[in-house]
């Protein structure tokens, strides 16, 4: 079907905005890198590439204002400017990223883009002095010239020197106004040949000349140097001439060819080592550079489409479960029917494929949390700069995968928490010094998986949360009465910061403390069926821990019965299943334990745990099943009455008011309509460790 032109246009624009946002992200990252290493040519080149792409794309979409300003920026981005301006260039790049972003959002809303005069002035300001200052440029040209002649060329140089000729290393900068680079290069070549014998020339041919700015040559000539300089200063072609006499040290002696070869080999080895080192450095500095190189095969799909597939797969799994049950019943009545085996085979095959399908679809949705993290270096830098603080950001676990939907939902709370950490958490320099802390504050982001949960920790080494201030503030803002506040336990006091409208910042700043505080964080996490925990130590710092389910989809579980009720645990946390008699169970410290292969295992009866209203087992059985469950390094045994089997469950998160216990993380519906409660393993573990002395859980 042929698309309407305007339809295609809008699709193109949607694509443009998407890719433009990525470019802005890249620009932001590169800007920060440039701030750290202002003379890094590779960074400048990458900025230039991003700006160039943005320029082209926006022009193609008819966003000329953006295209023009991008063009101006691209023009001034050169390693020379980087050298001359240092961090000033980074400042402009970051400002440009902001301006571009504002323009993009205007274009997206189809309103007139904001004025760009501020940015333009900055760009021009960058250009003007460096053009005037030719001495500075001369230095740059000689810096850039490498005179990296080949072995043969070095031999030629040395021969010419032996003949008594003078050899010059010449570097010529092609005038930036010269549009016809290939022609310019040809003319330079003509002139050099007219001046003497050209021993070596870089670039070597006209085609390569299209992109170079500096032409290097080794020239043997008997003309006076001043005259050569004059000849090389070709009007409208060459803007700058740099010339030095080549010495024997640059060249090689005939007899010393072997040595030369060796030196060359060493040089190559050194260069390779350098390269490796640079690689390693760039890897550590920019962990997503690998991702950047493989980004070409990435397909953009609307998340809603994936969700639709995901839902269908979920339905299929329930369907499979229904079939399974039907087959089991069929089994009982027609155990000899040959059709049974055929059906079982087909079902097994189907479930295997379904399993793969499910995993594949899940993988589509899972994205590394790095996508979210990478905006934070900029956030931290901006906020820190605004508050006049020096704050470093540490990021770990950026490769942790997370459902895209959850990731997107976490973006806002995380931004808020990080801003808070920098703005309120980290103290001003003098306060830090007084507290004998390093002046530079640290905010760290850490992501990891724990069981079926995704954990995100935001930690700062700042002043911590002052509980007294929280209490006072709660009273002041009318959140609670003084008498109520006094009765609150400490852990509850900390929870006050999640109340709507609560902020302890003494003044409302631009970056945080706008009154929409931590309550947003909690609202989002509640929606995700996640949790927020705050750990704080006065004077030491604060850690905020966000927990969210890894995915909104299904998990493999083990089904079992306790007291007539059906439960499930994630199969991934099951270590083993064993059977024990009552004789083997011992009582230690009011806990039932089991000796399992010389290891002491704490036993848990679900019906003994809080608020799990499982009915007491009617009679004492001789043999019990024990499911050994492990999370992290800790293990416990779950005493169950009956094993039911493995089942893939599509988790339906339960609304808070339905579940009174945090020991249950969700529920699911089986093929026959039975409701299963899914046990929250980490919660059970933490309950255990609170109720028993340390070390009781082996």
């Amino acid at each position: 079907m042929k698309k309407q032109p305007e339809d295609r246009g809008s699709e193109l624009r949607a694509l443009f905005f998407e890719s433009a946002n990525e470019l802005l992200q890249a620009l932001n990252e590169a800007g920060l890198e440039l701030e750290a290493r202002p003379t890094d040519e590779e960074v400048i080149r990458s900025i230039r590439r991003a700006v160039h792409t943005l320029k082209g794309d926006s022009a193609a979409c008819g966003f000329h204002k953006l295209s023009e300003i991008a063009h101006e920026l691209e023009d001034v981005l050169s390693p020379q400017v980087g050298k001359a301006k240092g961090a000033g260039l980074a400042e402009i790049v970051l400002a440009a990223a902001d301006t571009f972003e504002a323009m993009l959002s205007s274009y997206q809303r189809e309103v007139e883009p904001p004025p760009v005069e501020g940015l333009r002035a900055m760009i021009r300001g960058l250009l003007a002095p460096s053009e005037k200052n030719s001495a500075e440029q001369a230095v740059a040209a000689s810096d850039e010239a490498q005179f990296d002649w080949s072995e043969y060329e070095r031999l030629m140089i040395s021969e010419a020197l032996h003949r008594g000729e003078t050899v010059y290393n010449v570097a010529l900068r092609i005038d930036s106004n010269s549009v016809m680079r290939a022609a310019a290069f040809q003319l330079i070549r003509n002139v050099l040949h007219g001046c003497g014998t050209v021993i070596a020339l870089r670039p070597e041919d006209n085609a390569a000349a299209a992109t170079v700015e500096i032409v290097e040559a080794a020239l043997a000539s008997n003309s006076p140097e001043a005259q050569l300089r004059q000849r090389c200063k070709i009007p409208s072609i060459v803007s700058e001439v740099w010339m030095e006499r080549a010495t024997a040290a640059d060249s090689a002696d005939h007899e010393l060819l072997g040595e030369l070869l060796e030196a060359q080999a060493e040089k190559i080895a050194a260069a390779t080592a350098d390269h490796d080192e640079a690689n390693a450095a760039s890897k550590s500095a920019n962990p997503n550079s690998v991702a950047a190189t493989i980004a070409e095969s990435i397909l953009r799909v609307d998340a809603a489409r994936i969700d639709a597939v995901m839902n269908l797969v979920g339905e299929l799994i329930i369907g499979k479960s229904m079939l399974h049950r039907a087959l089991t019943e069929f089994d009982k009545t027609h155990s000899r029917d040959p059709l049974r085996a055929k059906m079982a085979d087909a079902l097994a095959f189907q479930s295997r494929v379904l399993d793969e399908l499910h995993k594949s679809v899940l993988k589509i949705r899972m994205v590394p949390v790095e996508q979210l993290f990478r905006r934070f270096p900029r956030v931290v830098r901006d906020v820190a700069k605004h508050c006049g603080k020096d704050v470093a950001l540490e990021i770990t676990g950026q490769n942790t995968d997370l459902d895209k939907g959850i990731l997107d939902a976490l973006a806002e709370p995380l931004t808020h928490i990080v801003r808070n950490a920098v703005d309120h958490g980290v103290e001003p320099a003098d306060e830090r010094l007084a507290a004998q802390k390093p002046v530079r504050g640290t905010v760290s982001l850490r992501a990891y998986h724990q069981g079926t949960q995704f954990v995100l920790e935001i930690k700062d080494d700042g002043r911590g949360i002052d509980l007294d201030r929280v209490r006072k503030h709660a009273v002041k803002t009318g959140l609670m009465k003084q008498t109520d506040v006094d009765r609150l336990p400490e852990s509850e006091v900390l929870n006050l910061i999640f109340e709507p409208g609560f902020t302890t910042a003494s003044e409302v700043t631009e970056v945080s403390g706008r009154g929409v505080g931590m309550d947003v964080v909690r609202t989002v996490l509640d929606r995700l069926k996640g949790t927020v925990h705050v750990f704080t130590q006065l004077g030491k710092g604060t850690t905020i821990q966000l927990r969210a389910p890894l995915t909104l989809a299904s998990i493999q579980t083990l089904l079992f019965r306790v007291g007539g009720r059906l439960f499930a645990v994630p199969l991934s946390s099951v270590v083993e299943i064993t059977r024990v008699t009552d004789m083997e169970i011992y009582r230690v410290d009011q806990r039932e334990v089991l000796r399992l292969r010389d290891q002491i295992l704490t036993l848990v009866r679900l019906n003994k745990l809080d608020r799990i209203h499982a009915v007491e087992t009617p009679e004492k059985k001789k043999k019990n099943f024990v499911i050994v469950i492990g999370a992290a390094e800790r293990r416990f045994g779950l005493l169950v009455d009956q094993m039911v089997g493995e089942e893939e469950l599509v988790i339906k998160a339960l609304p808070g008011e339905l579940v009174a216990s945090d020991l249950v993380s969700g529920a699911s519906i089986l093929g026959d309509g039975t409701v299963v409660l899914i046990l929250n393993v980490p919660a059970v573990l933490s309950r255990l460790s609170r109720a028993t002395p340390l070390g009781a859980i082996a």
Partner: protein
Amino acid sequence: MAQFAPLLRKDDKPVRYLVVDDSVFARKNIIKMIELFGGEVAGEAGDGLTAIAEFKRTAPDIVLMDITMPQMEGIEAVERIVRQHPDARIVMVSSVGYQENILAALQKGAKHFVQKPVKPEVLYEILRYVLADDPTAAGAPVALAGEHRS
């Protein structure tokens, strides 16, 4: 227009130019500049063939040659002139789009090129440079007079 110090030959006579372009307007434009530089128009041509004939007849100090012309293109004219007069100083005049042709002309022996639209100050510098190449020319600093060519 800005003032330019006259470009003169070594014998203090005005530099003589051959202006080759198929557009009369372009020729007039160039000629105006030449006069501004204190030069003298030795001849004009509207195509390559005429240019060769005119070169023989007038023996100019400098040829300003357009790239695209009827009957014989600038490149071929350059090649033929340089073959017969290796010391001929030809400056190509062309718009940016003809980089390939300029490249070819430079390989055939053209001394320089100037981009259309021609700016007088640019052309002046180029002419000064090209004239300096000649030991008999005087428009250039004296130090260049005895330049060695290998």
